[in-house]
């Protein structure tokens, strides 16, 4: 099996596990308004394993790549400290699903969001109605991982 194949199978399992752990056997009758605090992450690189350790796909080390992915239409997630990930379905002030304008401004930030939580097919989704607080980027992951991926490092002008 090729390395990408292994990663692919791993991330699928990781994603399912990460998004179902806290949600099983809960009889929900309607969407609950929740307030969650966590980091805005690039869900592709976080779950796919293409960038290695998930911690390397968060914070400052991955900020540039996270912008690329958000700009390209990759859904953004909100990851809490305990590892729960909420796929952001819609954001305050945005009309479209996955609209990227606001996402570009807050990618990698630690935010506290209030919104409606939906569980769908084992995945947590949130419709963010209000950003209660924004602590900015606080995870200085570049101190451990430098730039992830390495080619995200700006080239010096000659």
């Amino acid at each position, binding site marked *: 099996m090729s390395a990408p194949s292994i990663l692919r199978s791993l991330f*699928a399992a990781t994603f399912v596990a990460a998004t179902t752990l806290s949600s099983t056997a809960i009889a929900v009758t309607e969407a609950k308004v929740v307030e969650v605090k966590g980091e805005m992450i690039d869900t592709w690189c976080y779950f796919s394993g*293409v960038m290695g350790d998930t911690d390397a796909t968060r914070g400052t080390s991955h900020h540039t790549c996270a912008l690329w992915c958000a700009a390209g*239409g990759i859904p953004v997630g909100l990851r809490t400290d305990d590892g729960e990930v909420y796929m952001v379905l819609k954001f305050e002030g945005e009309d479209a699903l996955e609209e990227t304008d606001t996402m570009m401004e807050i990618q990698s930030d630690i935010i506290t969001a209030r919104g409606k939580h939906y569980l769908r097919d084992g995945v947590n989704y949130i419709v963010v109605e209000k950003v209660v607080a924004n602590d900015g980027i606080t995870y200085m992951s570049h101190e451990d991982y430098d730039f992830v991926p390495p080619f995200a490092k700006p080239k010096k002008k000659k």
Partner: protein
Amino acid sequence: MSLIGKLPGFLTGKVGIAAALVLGISAGGLGAALSVKTELPANATPDPAKFSVDPSNTPGFPKVKGGDFDLVDHNGNRRTSKNPEGKFQLLFFGYSNCKAICSMALPAIAEAVDLMEEMNAPITPILITVDPKRDTVEGLRKSVGDIHAKMVGLTGTEENLGVAYKAFNLEKKFLFEHVEEGAVYSHGSFIYLLDAEGNFKTLFAPVISPVRIAEISAGYIAEGAKSATN
């Protein structure tokens, strides 16, 4: 303060999206970040025990309007949201020349289609273009077969495509003209599951594996005429 707030003005806001992607593409950024092949490991097969709609789904999921598009397929035939084959549909918005998320999502859909064929739960894959200038009927005819033999490519006028985008709350933006690849677009990347009538059933983030797409889709098909737990 967000780091992006410390970046030069051209790297923030709407212009920043394009600028960031230009930087990304020029450095192999997004394309390289997404260049993992969607191969299935040999032992990964759908689990029949999972062929049911998840009972813990939250009612009232903010489903998209769905349906209502009226476009032209890659053979030049009119195609609406209702599937003439009477099958469920996996719908994705993208474009043939996309080197980023489409190159990941479309092969994943193709794999899910093959898996569902083996599960005796056939489904129709559909690509609605966000690049009608290049994805003409002729252009799609040349490209969709490379994705999957059963892939249906849909194009149309900007007006008719706009109706489809609006029905699925899709955002698409022209970003820039790449020297070699031509027009580059940003677009939403959810994969939508529709029934044969074109009604929205659920959606998948592109990180969901083909196996899970197949299992979940088979659950909704098995549910039959019953509406999803909304």
